[in-house]
């Protein structure tokens, strides 16, 4: 059996520069294995070890997804092998398109019992890709999973839901989106980086998958988000009591009152 971890090579949007005309400059941002995908890879490693499955990383994206650095960074986190679908047509792919291509690649790979993903990608953060992917595969999907246990009869899961802890069982195949804090992914060491250099990397051609990609919405306009008008009043905090008194006075002046709960 194979366990697939879907992971994205992406940059943090906070490092992008948004121009006054809404143009985005990514040149100063450095892509990496998207923050929460590292969680999925770490959980995948544990499950693969427990079940004897092969752990395959699957990354879909623009040409940068195929950079040797991208595959190695993910492999160093504990994958057994990497599968990449990189194409200029996928550079701006949203959840709908990414999920469609991921599903086709999972099918093409074959013998996959489980797909793991992070909670969301760092660049888009839509939290919808695993759900749409499961829809394409017609597999069961659960999000915000905080723990997964493998046993021969199926999977046992835990998650926080509706103000409580839920325990669940399901039979594979399944798509699971891990909670952001499911594990603290270990930082790869020198040994992991060296081992990554010897692991197999395979590229799948988007054309070979024979997909008619979901049409993207039409972009009519782009602009920087309006910056909220904040006062930026600095209150001297050298003396905490004086600072507190000043803040309270200012808030009262703004019309706030403190008689019990509003």
């Amino acid at each position, binding site marked *: 059996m194979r366990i697939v971890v879907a992971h994205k090579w992406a940059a943090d*949007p*906070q490092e992008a520069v*948004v121009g006054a005309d809404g143009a985005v400059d990514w040149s100063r941002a450095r892509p990496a294995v998207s923050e929460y995908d590292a969680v999925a890879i770490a959980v995948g490693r544990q499950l693969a070890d427990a079940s004897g499955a092969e752990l395959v990383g699957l990354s879909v994206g623009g040409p940068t997804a195929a950079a040797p650095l991208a595959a190695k960074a993910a492999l160093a986190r504990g994958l057994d092998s990497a599968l990449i679908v990189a194409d200029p047509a996928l550079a701006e792919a*949203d*959840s*709908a398109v990414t*999920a469609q291509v991921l*599903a086709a690649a999972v099918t093409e790979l074959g013998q996959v019992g489980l797909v793991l993903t992070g909670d969301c990608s760092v660049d888009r*953060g*839509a*939290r*919808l890709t695993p*759900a*749409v*992917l*499961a*829809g394409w595969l017609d597999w069961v*999907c*659960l999000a915000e999973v905080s723990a997964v246990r493998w046993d021969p009869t199926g999977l046992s899961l835990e998650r*926080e*839901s509706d*103000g409580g*802890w*839920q*325990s*669940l*069982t*399901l039979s594979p195949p399944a798509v699971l989106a891990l*909670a*952001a*804090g499911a594990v*603290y992914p270990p930082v790869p060491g020198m040994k992991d980086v060296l081992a990554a250099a010897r692991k197999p990397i395979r590229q799948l051609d988007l054309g070979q998958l024979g997909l008619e990609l*979901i*049409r993207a919405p*039409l972009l*009519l*306009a*782009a*602009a*920087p*988000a*309006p910056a909220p008008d*904040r*006062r*930026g*009043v600095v209150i001297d*905090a*050298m003396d*905490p*009591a004086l*600072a*507190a*008194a000043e*803040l*309270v006075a*200012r*808030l009262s002046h*703004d019309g*706030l009152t403190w008689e019990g709960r*509003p």
Partner: protein
Amino acid sequence: MTWINYVIATGRPVEGLVERATAVGGGPVWGLAVGPAPVAQRLAQSGVERVVWFETAADVPAEALARGLAAQVTARPGLVWAGRTAPERVLLGAAAAALRAPVLTDAVDLWLEDDRLVARQAALAGRLWLTLAFDRPVAILLEGGPAQADQPTRASVEIVAGPALTHPLRQVDWRPRGGAPVDLKAARRVVAVGRGLKAALDLGLIEALAEALGAEVACSRPLAEGLGWLPKDRYVGVSGQQVSPQLYCAVGLSGQAQHLAGARTADLIVAINSDPDAPVMAAADYILCGDLYQLVPALTEALS
């Protein structure tokens, strides 16, 4: 062609979504209720024209019905609307794939123009606004929530059974976490705390301040997920709650774009942080640069 607007409900209030779908969907609004009977009954009184009900036993999570829901929307395509909780997202994803539909997330505004759905989307962790036009069908992920307008009590509409196609999924146990569930969206005042807090025990300091302010306690994502010091429904941000209080007091949190995107519409923001260069300082109305362990008790004291 008339497009149906489907609104997915799994138990959380969706009256607000029904309102939006009615206002901008440009077609009849149907409810897709996934869960036990009360979910369908509530939806039937929310303003929808009819309800398609996917009944689940008490030990079957809503996600198990994704297959039936997908079959329903393909039989009669349309726009699908759902809120942001985990089961709502899974059901919406199943519908989107079944319809081969594009998805719309993080919309700050949406309207119908020349028979297309146009949306302003907050991209790049809320830093960029895109205006996008969608052909229908489309899957829309939008904050659900209770009704915006004061709604009259409505007569219940017809409830019909949806296709009973399920995935093998069972809940075997549920343990309450303790503490009442919170609706941060409705809170007039919020004290949000971040990793500047050194230990879970120190939450007492924050709770005392919140009490004195008449505020709810909220937090940054790492405190709820990872550290687990507070329940998940208390973290604010792009992936968490979106709040709109009169006062947002950010204590020991750096204010990364992903966090502040959830408090963008607060009337007043107070930042308490020891780092003058923390992003939250540039986004605040009142800035107190110092140690929260001194400033928070002093503030609590000054309020009582």
